């Protein structure tokens, strides 16, 4: 059975997964998202929980509703999500890394060197 972490509301985890699909392009602009019932069956969750996930995504302007047809990805959602993730990247990813490097005594210059090294390797492969 698809697992969820026990410590965050399930609807938030589902909203997160749908946003990840939009970011990756698995769900394209104006593409139809699963219905509440499909989502409930797929994840084995209460349909009210699935509906809450959609409510959150509508409020965050990720999806829109077409009455009687279903939920669709807003055309501007991918670019907006990308922008949001870029804004949070330094706070969520870089900052904790810097704190950790300081704690265990790795000089930042060494971290930067390694990052550049990895980037070159990725370019070559």
């Amino acid at each position, binding site marked *: *059975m698809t697992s969820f972490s*026990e*410590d965050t*509301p399930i609807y938030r985890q589902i909203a997160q997964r749908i946003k990840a699909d939009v970011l990756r392009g698995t769900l394209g602009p104006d593409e139809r998202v699963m219905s509440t019932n499909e989502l409930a*069956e797929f*994840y*084995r*969750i*209460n349909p009210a*929980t699935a509906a809450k996930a959609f409510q959150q995504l509508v409020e965050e302007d990720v999806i829109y509703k077409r009455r009687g047809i279903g939920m669709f990805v807003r055309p501007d959602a991918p670019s907006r999500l990308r922008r949001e993730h870029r804004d949070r990247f330094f706070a969520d990813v870089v900052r904790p890394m810097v704190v950790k490097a300081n704690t265990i005594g790795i000089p930042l210059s060494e971290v930067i060197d390694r990052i550049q090294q990895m980037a070159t390797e990725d370019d070559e492969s």
Partner: protein
Amino acid sequence: MSILEARDLTLRYGKTTAVDRLSVRLDGGKIYGLLGRNGSGKTSLLSVLAGFRKASGGEALLDGDPVFENRNATRRICLIRETGDSVDDDWPYNRVRDALAFAGEVRPYWDPTYAAGLTDRFELSMGKRLGQLSRGQRAALACVLGLASRAPVTLFDECYLGLDAPSRYTFYDELLKDFMEHPRTIVISTHLIEEVSRLFEEVVVIHAGRLVVQEDAEELRSRGTSVIGPAEAVDRVTSGLVVTGEKRLGPTKSAMVLGEFDGARRTAAEEAGLELGPVALQDLFVHLTEGVGGPT
């Protein structure tokens, strides 16, 4: 949709008080989880709500009418107990198909086609003698009887516990599918939370015959916060809050806090270098039902 309600409900067996002035209201059209430890009064509460037992005090009501000895109410309620409550083995008609036929006669909303389909899904053979069913097969039959009853109020009292993992998933799938096609009130009592909690819209926690909490399942999931760090800082930040559990390891202390951890407190905690985290539903349940005032 039918509204099932307990008002100041008490059930005593001799000197034992199994349900203690409990009030709870279950609005229609939801899947409820009734959570409580062994002996907390889950089965007693469900038995009174279904009209199987007479309350010692207070009332059990369906849409405002007393349930006990009220055919108009009990015909709309189906309580499935772990044993399945089916026909006796020493009866001449003692096979799976007879149990289904019997349910068809006493359950006004029974769907025989659906029952037959479910029997297949659970790999139960119609000709099998009831007395020869394994524990898992008996549990499967109980699930079939409850689902196919299509009763406006269906109460499952731990009946799925005897099922093996694949059959439990079958039960969850069928329950969700049928609930979406035929919305009704479903109550599932359990002490095993992790696996089924995602099926619930609302959760009712009872302990020692009393109501501890009734809340939206997702709200409950975000209700606890764990605070970890130097003991003195943890105490300062959590003062004035309901602390449900504490553990100490040397100078470090971890506390579990109930309720909203608001912005100011969160900032204070972060500035003091404390680690904040969520609390799993299972842990929350353990804390909610540990040492909470029992019957006096």
